[in-house]
């Protein structure tokens, strides 16, 4: 088991190293842009998985991206606040909203929770659409969100975010921090408790776990990350519109997760990178792509519920069975 952990560590470390060094070899803004999109998708899928691990299919995940993006964008545009302050406020506001929403909705389970979050996602989208244009941009959305302010360390360096490469580093760094945080939470005692709650919440309650508190903390933690990501998202694309915040937004995270596999945090990473990269590579056929993707999704659910990351165990099991029968 120890060996496996070090292999995992080495693999993820080298992956991060490659991603870090990449802008040195290519300055292609399109390529870097695709990677940034992949990073955003990975974060969204991994946070979705964190809440799914407590047993809740949170369709409103994308709304929290919207909360973060709109908080940050509005503060930057209307008040001219520094980006880093906007980022902080985006995290705080999203966290508080997650606390409020989680407090109400986490009481209901299963289908009712799904329904609540579907209603939430749509009503938030409709609220933003119906909002007066001068306040929140209405249906057209917020435009001209400024790029982040540069980091200035007097006398040493100035890091500006006008260039795509520096923004790439910002999102990469954020993603690594978020994923490490999610991973360490999951493997901690807290994460174990959350898993226990998913498997048998009545039992967990009976052994003295305050399940509601654990659920809310897990919920708020994951969605604060989504909010922070929303702030980065808004400043990266300099644009956020309610059309992006419908329930199909979260559905994409679910699709990435199912194809990658929910078993470990590697699943969302693999699923999101694979599908995002694929849809960029097959850009000329973009409108056809959802058809095979939907077929693959249903196929995976039927025959490979562990997703891509379940493949090695599946193959080795098949091989063992084949050897045994010989």
């Amino acid at each position, binding site marked *: 088991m120890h060996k496996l952990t070090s292999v995992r560590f080495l693999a993820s470390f080298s992956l991060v190293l490659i991603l870090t060094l990449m802008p040195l070899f290519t300055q292609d803004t399109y390529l870097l842009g695709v990677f940034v999109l992949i990073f955003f998708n990975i974060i969204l899928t991994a946070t979705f998985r964190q809440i799914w691990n407590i047993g809740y299919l949170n369709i409103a995940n994308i709304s929290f991206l919207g909360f973060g993006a709109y908080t940050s964008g509005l503060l930057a545009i209307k008040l001219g606040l520094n980006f880093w302050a906007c980022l902080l406020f985006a995290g705080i506001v999203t966290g508080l909203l997650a606390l409020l929403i989680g407090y109400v909705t986490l009481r209901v389970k*299963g289908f009712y929770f*799904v329904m*609540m979050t579907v209603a939430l996602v749509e*009503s938030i989208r409709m609220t933003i659409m119906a909002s007066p244009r001068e306040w929140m941009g209405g249906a057209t959305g917020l435009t001209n969100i400024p790029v982040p302010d540069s980091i200035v360390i007097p006398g040493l360096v100035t890091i500006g975010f006008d260039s795509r490469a520096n923004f790439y580093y910002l999102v990469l760094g954020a993603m690594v921090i978020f994923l490490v945080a999610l991973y360490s939470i999951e493997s901690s005692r807290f994460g174990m408790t959350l898993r226990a709650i998913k498997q048998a919440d009545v039992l967990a309650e009976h052994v003295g776990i305050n399940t509601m508190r654990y659920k809310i903390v897990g919920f708020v933690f994951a969605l604060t990350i989504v909010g922070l990501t929303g702030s980065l998202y808004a400043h990266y694309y300099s644009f956020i519109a309610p059309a992006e915040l419908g329930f199909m937004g979260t559905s994409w995270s679910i699709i990435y997760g199912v194809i990658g596999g929910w078993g470990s945090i590697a699943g969302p990473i693999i699923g999101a990178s694979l599908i995002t990269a694929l849809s960029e590579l097959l850009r000329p056929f973009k409108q056809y792509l959802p058809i095979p*993707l*939907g077929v693959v*999704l249903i196929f995976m659910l039927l025959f490979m519920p562990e997703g891509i990351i379940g493949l090695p165990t599946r193959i080795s099991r098949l091989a063992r069975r084949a050897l045994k029968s010989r």
Partner: protein
Amino acid sequence: MPLPLIVQTALNGFTLGMLYVLVASGITLMFGIMHIVNFAHGAILMLGAFSFLILYQFLGVNFFLSLLICPVVIGALGIILGRICFQPFRGELDRSFITSLGLILIFQASMLVCFGNFAFALRGPVQGVVRLFGIAISWERILVIVVGLVAMTGLFLFIKLNKWGQAMVASAQDDVGGMLQGIDLNKVAAACMFIGCGLAGVAGALVGTIFSIEPFMGEAYVVKCFMIVALGGLGSLPGAVVGGLILGFLEAFATVLTGAAIGPLIAFVIVIFFLLFRPRGLLGHA
């Protein structure tokens, strides 16, 4: 509000509610009998609308004949979908939900590829407006109300009087008990998918006559109809009827009172708050 306006709005709400009832009753049937969450029901409605468009507008089939063929086609599609995609996930709400996301992708993209991202409009067989005591209602809306009433009455009679309808009720109450009495669950599921999808097909065709047809039209309906199903009580058919009419009236009146942008939102928020305090819905069991 003056009286004619109230009656007018109520009629509009009734039309809208009738469409919601047709879609929501399919969702609630599938939930009650197959224990699945078919979130692709809006996309199925959209397929119904497009098949009606092909039959009536492109092939020139008689309007009422197309209105009969359309639900049969969509119902047959529903049986196939039920067999391949939903039967394996009986009783698994999350996985059937994710399956239906896949179906939404497939249906929307294939219609987008075939017809492009345009909004099509249908011309009903009888144009014009009926005016009575200062109230105006178009023939298309009258058609929606009549067809909706006929379809729902037919469904209730089928369930009350027919052997298969009673088998559906029985297996919704207790599927193992039903099997012990010799009910073939697969056949009941097929019947349920046929009826549910057929009703969505009718609704799609009717939507086409009063609103427009485009590949993403289903999304708004499916979200609203799931609200209705939750409002009326999961798996309860009378609940779906009551809930659908309530949402239709709420939406119509809220739109008249506050404007087209905020109206649907207000109706939505009222439903959410209702669910917070009574999660099992109006006519649902605990």
